[in-house]
């Protein structure tokens, strides 16, 4: 099987950063905050590059939708081994309301335009935790989907996907073209070291506008309010087991 893999990557606030809610509760503070590639997107890129290294796929094209800074995320993916990038420029108000529905429309349009045989995405983004983009993209393209993939093998008559589900593991076989979403245990992403980043500077990143793809970015969602999770109550220390039991009884837990 040889073909083109389209990998979607998202620029999110770095996983290790302590998130702060804006004073007006309209969202989260993003100015001056460290951003990086979504961890599940890293796993998706790694899988695509692995497929190319095994010569099962011909080309890895990485896509990101967002403002100028999204190009950094694309560069990281190029440093991990992707061949070229596509930056779909979305900024300002459009970017604030950009969600899985709009991104999946963009990806579907790009998949047709680039003639992709496989789309690999992270299962969800760590900032919005939607877990929808892969599924919506598959639906828009009428392609089968292998979501929460922890193991992927390309075979003559399709793709075998082992999925991580609540009850354990489910193995399915889907035909191509298809959409896959990467789960945590799919692979170990390689680090984009400085020499690789330097080499990746030669790779091309094309600039595209959503209008060029005929995609309407209007959102059907409105964020009303963003709050921090409730503060953890302080714990209490007790001296004896009897104390513990009586405290539990008081709290109605026993």
């Amino acid at each position, binding site marked *: 099987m040889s073909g083109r893999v389209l990998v979607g990557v998202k620029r999110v606030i770095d*996983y*290790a950063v302590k998130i702060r809610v804006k004073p007006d509760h309209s969202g989260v503070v993003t100015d001056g905050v460290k951003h990086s590639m979504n*961890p*599940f997107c890293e796993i998706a890129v790694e899988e695509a590059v692995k497929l190319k290294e095994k010569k099962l796929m011909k080309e890895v094209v990485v896509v990101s939708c967002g403002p100028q800074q999204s190009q950094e995320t694309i560069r990281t993916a190029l440093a991990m081994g992707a061949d070229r990038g596509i930056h779909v420029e979305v900024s300002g108000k459009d970017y604030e309301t950009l969600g899985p529905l709009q991104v999946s429309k963009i990806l579907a349009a790009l998949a047709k335009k680039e003639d992709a045989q496989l789309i690999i995405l992270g299962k969800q983004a*760590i900032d919005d935790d939607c877990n929808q983009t892969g599924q919506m993209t598959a639906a828009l393209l009428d392609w089968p989907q292998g979501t929460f993939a922890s193991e992927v093998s390309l075979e003559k008559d399709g793709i075998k996907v082992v999925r991580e589900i609540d009850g354990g593991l489910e193995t399915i076989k889907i035909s191509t073209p298809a959409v896959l979403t990467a789960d*945590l245990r799919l692979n*170990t*992403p390689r*680090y984009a*070291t*400085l*020499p690789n*980043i330097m080499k990746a500077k030669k790779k091309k990143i094309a600039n595209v506008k959503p209008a060029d793809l005929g995609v309407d970015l209007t959102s059907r969602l409105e964020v009303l309010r963003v709050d921090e999770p409730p503060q953890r109550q302080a714990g209490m220390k007790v001296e004896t087991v009897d104390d513990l039991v009586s405290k539990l009884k008081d709290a109605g837990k026993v």
Partner: protein
Amino acid sequence: MANPLRGEVFRLYKNLLYLGREYPKGAAYFRERLKSAFMKNKDETDPEKIRALVAKGDFVIHELQALYYLRKYRAMKKRYYEE
């Protein structure tokens, strides 16, 4: 410093500095220790010893990558998967 190895040493320093940006205790902390570690050996002239030190530096690069990966993996596992 032996001339051909000069490039190696600089390359190692730049790579480590780049990796240090993500260090859990902070990039400044890392840079201080990186600089003093390199300065400690700045008078070394034996090419064999320099190569050994560079190899040690490469090993540190691998250790850091493993540290970063494990840290991220454990954070994701804790956040998204029921224990």
